[in-house]
């Protein structure tokens, strides 16, 4: 220990810390300033940015003793330093202009990157309050965000600068939407926004408990091996080690899994290691360092087994078997779509195009690595709720409690309880804020291990994964090989598709079967396809498991479908937009699985909007202005062209899976309400959606609704946050719970005012008799519910009424009648049917068209996306600001999928070990984006809304490769695009490349 003296946000500290501390550790763990985040520990992501003596640094690799005697500023100091008001008496938090701008422009989603961005941006604005886009991008070039797609961040920095210069902050520019209601269709501020911009937001690693121990996980050295022996004696003997656990220590079910119970809590004993991420032992110790050290002392004797790492090899009869007890061997699932008669279809076709496409394994790269913290039953301290609802903190049950940022809290509870041999009710899962999920936080990570550690040691145990561990361990997006054959008539009418997909599902089932089912059912694209024969083989291999990832398999098949379509258009000499227009799904058409689309198909309108905008676009370049936007043009060494693609994506689980969510609403005598459901908030602003639905139904101001999510003791089960389902399913549960509450209050108030319940209206915190409606009612016709099926208010001025009381008094009236102020509503989404039955597989689909203007440097092969024009049919925009965030974030993620991302594994051993080796798009790759919203409401969705979380990242990748082909005549059959291969193909006049970056 050495003494470190430094001044943080104006306060001097003298600390005894080991000389090997990094500044981020001192701030977070020694000073409790957890606003500074750690996303990578390798100077890659910028989450840990703080200011030292006026200069920004990545504090994760900054030795703390470099800051000896220095002035350090962190996010926590930003608002406070400005909080002095004129009269000096106010203690209200005054936000820095950047903090306000980040809120108002939607630049914070999961919020994990936000402190780093704000700190880094202050260094720019301090010097130059009027920065250009280019200067902003240079300043933030190594600060990464996985959620927003950066445009909102750029806009925020500009807005903050403008505020600093002029004293007024410009509003966010939003896409136009249909007429809003009082809460629906409004760009309302996220309920968690202030916490996220001030560093007060707490993620799992930000919690500490008295007596807390730290766990570290030993993982397999081999992609496939029997584990003969595990010798933990030396590790146990190490001072500070409290337990070393292996497969022998699991009291309950030794395996877990979301769909199939095939994933061992620990490999060892009868379970071989099946990929290098498999856990073999857990060391629990006084400090994280000691736990790591203990891992080095564990001796494991492996018997290496042959590994299979290519899904096609895995299907061979002589392939090494991963799960020998499975009757279908390595075949996780053969998924089939059959429609019409493909042979006839191809025979009738004038033209047939067939290609094989490949997509890589990709990584969610959420900026917050996984962390789980378990507090044992019998723990004497308190287990704080993460809810901000007044009174939530009083609820403390003496149960084994797991804090975790998870997409499916109830599933975590089930899996933890089962492996620990407990009843579900003996476990509480409390969801903390999540620094992004994107599908990668659905499976169990450290939850069971932490719970086991806590149970064995009787002390709280935290397990935080390093970025490296996160990369190795968690399920990825399936790599696929897709052979697809498309047949059409000369006039462009599509007739038939035949496809064969191989999906690498890795070592465990995870959601692999579901994901590849979606890839298969969507492999016709959003087009009318009379004949289809699609076969998909989801295979077990010794690679990392593949599971859910935004797009859920459709990202992959859309790349193949939309590429083939452009090849077809070229061979037919047809405009690619026209070819799509001829075939797009419309109301009344049928999907390839036999579902008739009866409503809410806004695809054609999306196509029209996008095409119109390209044709009128000024960036279209000289040659394309009036005529053909798909023709390329050259400026300097760069060749430009537009490319287009369409896509669709189901909302909800579908395929016959019961899809329900339960929400609970409670009203309080202080005039507020609470809405509770376990659905996960991972950055998408579900909490805002839930609050808006509840506020709309109860006629309350948005801020009067407290939202509690992700707590298995306090919130009913909202089901998984997956399949773009939460806005629809949990939004509906919240809406209908609140509506039931409103109806109950209407009944009570009707009696009080001696009138009909239907004329009791709620608006802006008041309950009143709607005299106008009453008059109408007396005039014979009984009105249905108010406009848009809500409570009669459209957000316009409050109608005059002499009979009104406050919402608080309305609640008192309810209580006086001995009615319960709490209602639970279990919402069941419309029934769906399994694949193959010909029934409706899904209750709603979202649609999108994306067009990308791409430049290819003909000297170097470098590809850049310059502009993206998109249109999304989302049914209804509940919150246009958050919706835009989902769209822009999804598009930029799709750009990464096309151009940069590949999780590379060589013979079962990951090459991609660090974040620096997995480049997600940075701010410099963000194109100018024009995003249109199309609202074809779906009858059962909340106010007409359907999902948007995934569709936004689906058509963009093929739009980019289509644009590349339009620009330079080279078709990329594999992702991500490799500038090296592209340049050599241009030079050698090759028309197609199936080389991609990372090819081994």
């Amino acid at each position, binding site marked *: 220990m050495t003494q470190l003296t430094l001044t943080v946000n104006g306060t001097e500290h003298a600390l005894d810390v*080991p000389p090997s501390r990094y500044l981020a550790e001192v701030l977070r763990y020694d000073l409790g300033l957890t606003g500074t985040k750690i996303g990578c520990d390798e*100077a890659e992501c910028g989450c840990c940015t703080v200011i030292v003596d006026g*200069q*920004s640094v990545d504090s994760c690799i900054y030795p703390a003793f470099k800051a000896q005697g220095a002035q350090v500023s962190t996010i926590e100091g930003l608002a406070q330093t400005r909080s002095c008001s004129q009269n000096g008496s106010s203690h209200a938090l005054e936000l820095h202009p950047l903090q306000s701008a980040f809120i108002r422009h939607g630049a914070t989603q999961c919020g994990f990157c936000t402190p780093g961005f704000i700190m880094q941006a202050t260094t720019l604005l301090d010097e130059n309050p009027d920065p250009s886009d280019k200067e902003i991008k240079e*300043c933030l070039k190594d600060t990464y965000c996985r959620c927003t797609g950066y445009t909102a961040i750029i806009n925020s920095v500009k807005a903050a600068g403008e505020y600093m210069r002029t004293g007024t902050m410009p509003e966010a520019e939003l896409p136009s939407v249909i007429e809003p209601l009082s809460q629906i269709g409004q760009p309302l501020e996220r309920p968690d926004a202030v916490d996220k911009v001030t560093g007060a937001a707490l993620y799992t690693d930000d919690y500490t408990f008295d007596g807390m121990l730290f766990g570290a996980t030993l993982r397999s050295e081999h992609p496939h091996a029997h584990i003969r022996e595990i010798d933990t004696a030396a590790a146990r003997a190490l001072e500070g080690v409290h337990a070393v656990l292996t497969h022998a220590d699991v009291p309950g079910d030794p395996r877990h899994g979301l769909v199939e119970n095939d994933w061992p809590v620990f490999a060892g004993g009868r379970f071989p290691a099946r990929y290098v991420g498999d856990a073999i032992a857990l060391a629990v110790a006084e400090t994280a360092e000691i736990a790591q050290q203990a891992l080095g002392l564990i001796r494991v004797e492996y018997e290496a087994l042959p590994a299979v790492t290519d899904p096609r090899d895995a299907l061979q009869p002589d392939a090494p078997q991963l799960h020998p007890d499975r009757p279908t061997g390595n075949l996780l699932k053969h998924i089939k779509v059959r429609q019409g008669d493909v042979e006839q279809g191809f025979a009738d076709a004038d033209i047939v195009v067939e290609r094989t496409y490949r997509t890589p394994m990709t990584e969610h790269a959420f900026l917050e690595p996984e962390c789980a913290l378990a507090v044992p039953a019998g723990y004497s301290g308190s287990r704080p709720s993460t809810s901000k609802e007044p009174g939530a903190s009083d609820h403390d049950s003496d149960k084994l409690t797991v804090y975790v940022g998870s997409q499916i809290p109830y599933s975590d509870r089930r899996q933890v309880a089962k492996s620990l041999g407990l009843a579900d009710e003996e476990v509480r899962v409390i969801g903390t804020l999540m620094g992004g999920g994107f599908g990668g936080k659905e499976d169990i990570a450290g939850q069971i291990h932490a719970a086991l550690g806590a149970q064995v040691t009787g002390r709280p145990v935290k397990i935080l994964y390093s970025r490296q561990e996160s990369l190795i361990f968690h399920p990825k997006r399936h790599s696929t090989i897709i052979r697809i054959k498309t047949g059409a008539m000369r006039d462009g009418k599509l007739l038939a598709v035949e496809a064969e997909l191989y999906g690498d599902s890795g070592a465990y089932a995870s959601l692999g079967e579901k994901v590849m089912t979606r890839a298969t059912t969507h492999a016709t694209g959003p087009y009318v396809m009379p004949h289809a024969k699609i076969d998909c083989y989801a295979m077990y291999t010794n690679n990392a498991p593949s599971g859910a990832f935004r797009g859920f398999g459709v990202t992959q098949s859309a790349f193949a479908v939309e590429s083939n379509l452009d090849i077809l258009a070229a061979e037919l000499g047809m405009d690619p937009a026209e070819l799509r227009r001829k075939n797009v799904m419309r109301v009344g058409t049928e999907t390839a699985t036999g579902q008739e689309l009866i409503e809410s198909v806004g695809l054609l309108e999306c196509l029209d909007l996008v095409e119109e905008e390209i044709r009128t676009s000024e960036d279209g370049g000289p040659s394309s202005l009036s005529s053909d936007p798909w023709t390329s043009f050259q400026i300097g060494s760069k060749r430009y062209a537009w490319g287009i693609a369409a896509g669709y994506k189901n909302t909800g689980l579908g395929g016959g899976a019961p899809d329900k969510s339960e929400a609970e609403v409670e009203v309080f005598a202080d005039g507020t309400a609470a809405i509770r459901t376990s659905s996960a908030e991972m950055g998408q602003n579900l909490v805002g959606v839930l609050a808006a639905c509840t506020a709309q139904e109860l006629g309350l101001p948005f801020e009067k609704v407290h939202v509690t999510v992700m707590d298995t003791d306090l919130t009913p089960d909202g089901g998984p946050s997956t399949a773009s389902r939460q806005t629809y399913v949990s939004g509906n549960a919240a809406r209908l719970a609140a509506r039931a509450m409103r109806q109950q209050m209407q009944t009570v108030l009707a009696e009080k005012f001696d009138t009909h319940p239907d004329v009791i209206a709620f608006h802006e915190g008041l309950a009143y008799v709607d005299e106008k409606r009453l008059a109408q009612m007396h005039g014979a016709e009984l009105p249905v519910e108010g406009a848009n099926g809500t409570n009669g208010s459209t957000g316009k001025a409050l109608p005059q009424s002499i009979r009104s009381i406050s919402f608080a008094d309305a609640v008192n009236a309810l209580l006086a009648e001995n009615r319960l102020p709490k209602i639970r509503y279990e919402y069941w989404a419309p029934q769906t049917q399994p694949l193959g039955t010909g029934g409706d597989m899904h209750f709603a689909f979202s649609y999108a068209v994306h067009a990308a203007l791409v430049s290819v440097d003909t000297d170097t092969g470098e590809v850049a996306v310059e502009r993206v024009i998109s249109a999304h049919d989302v049914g209804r925009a509940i919150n246009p600001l958050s919706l835009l965030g989902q769209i822009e974030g999804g598009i930029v993620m799709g750009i990464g999928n096309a*151009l940069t991302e*590949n999780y590379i594994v060589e013979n079962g051993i990951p*090459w991609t*070990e660090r974040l620096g080796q997995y480049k997600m798009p940075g701010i410099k790759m963000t194109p100018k984006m024009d995003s249109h919203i199309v609202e074809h409401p779906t009858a059962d969705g909340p106010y007409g809304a359907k999902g948007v979380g995934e569709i936004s990242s689906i058509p963009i990748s093929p739009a980019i490769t289509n644009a590349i082909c339009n620009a330079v005549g080279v078709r990329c059959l594999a992702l991500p695009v490799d500038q*090296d291969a592209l340049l050599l193909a241009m030079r050698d006049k090759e028309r197609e490349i199936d080389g991609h970056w990372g090819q081994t």
Partner: protein
Amino acid sequence: MSRWRAYHTPTTVAEALSLLHQHKDKARIIAGGTDLILDMEAEHAVVPEVLVDVTKIAGIDRVALEDGWIVLGAGITHTQIESSPLLRAQARCLTESCGVIGGPQVRNVATLGGNVAHALPAADGTIGLLALEAEVEIAGHGGSNRWQPLLSIFAGPGRNRLAPDQMLHAFRFRPIAARAGNAFDRIMRPQGVALPVLGIAARVRLDADLRRVEDAVIAIGPAGPTPFRASGAEEALTAAAEFDDAAVENAVAAAQEQARLRTSKYRASQEYRREMIGVLLRRVLQAAVERARMNDAPTQVEDT
């Protein structure tokens, strides 16, 4: 990863060297740490017991004009280089090459000395310095300071020739001559590799008519195990009667011929790099010659 046990921040060179001498191979110099710490975390470097932080040494981050040389302390950060008016006027190839390293948070702490000492053949700062024909001052325990050519300190990829108790103290190069100009450019790929596919820095001096290249220095990385000077290309340029397309193409051919290009997995094929030598050399020579033509009467630089 286990970690170091002691962290020293000496304020004089003598103190730093005596610490290094005292702990021998148990000690390691740290400057910005942006290479060293990452290497240690990734277990590519052995973790030393003692870190000797050289960035608090007085004068280690200086930029000065001394005895007709422009002198840079080895601890100067890339941010300081980028924002130095003197260097912007005198050494564009250096401000350009250091200006593209990492992002601001990295450049605020990463040093030129660390970039050079890390000894990667494609290190951007090193390539910029090489085109300036820089010399490096090595300080050794016992006060043995000496200047030597930059290229002489590289032993192989990631290996320099410094003894454990020596450190890089400073770099120096001559101010820009009349009718001289320099430039740097590089090719990156957006995927998961931090180092450039190829980087080239060039410095040229033109004759009085501004037509012929009288003197040329061309640095390329990576084009061999250590930072590389394309002497063949330099000769091709100075041998030409005029700076024209033919002269440039001859230089390109000579550089392609002489460079030892490799296919590095996930970074670039040999073939691609060969093409990039042409692309970059054309771009960089064009820029350097344009600057040389503008630099007819160089502004006087004063000692700072």
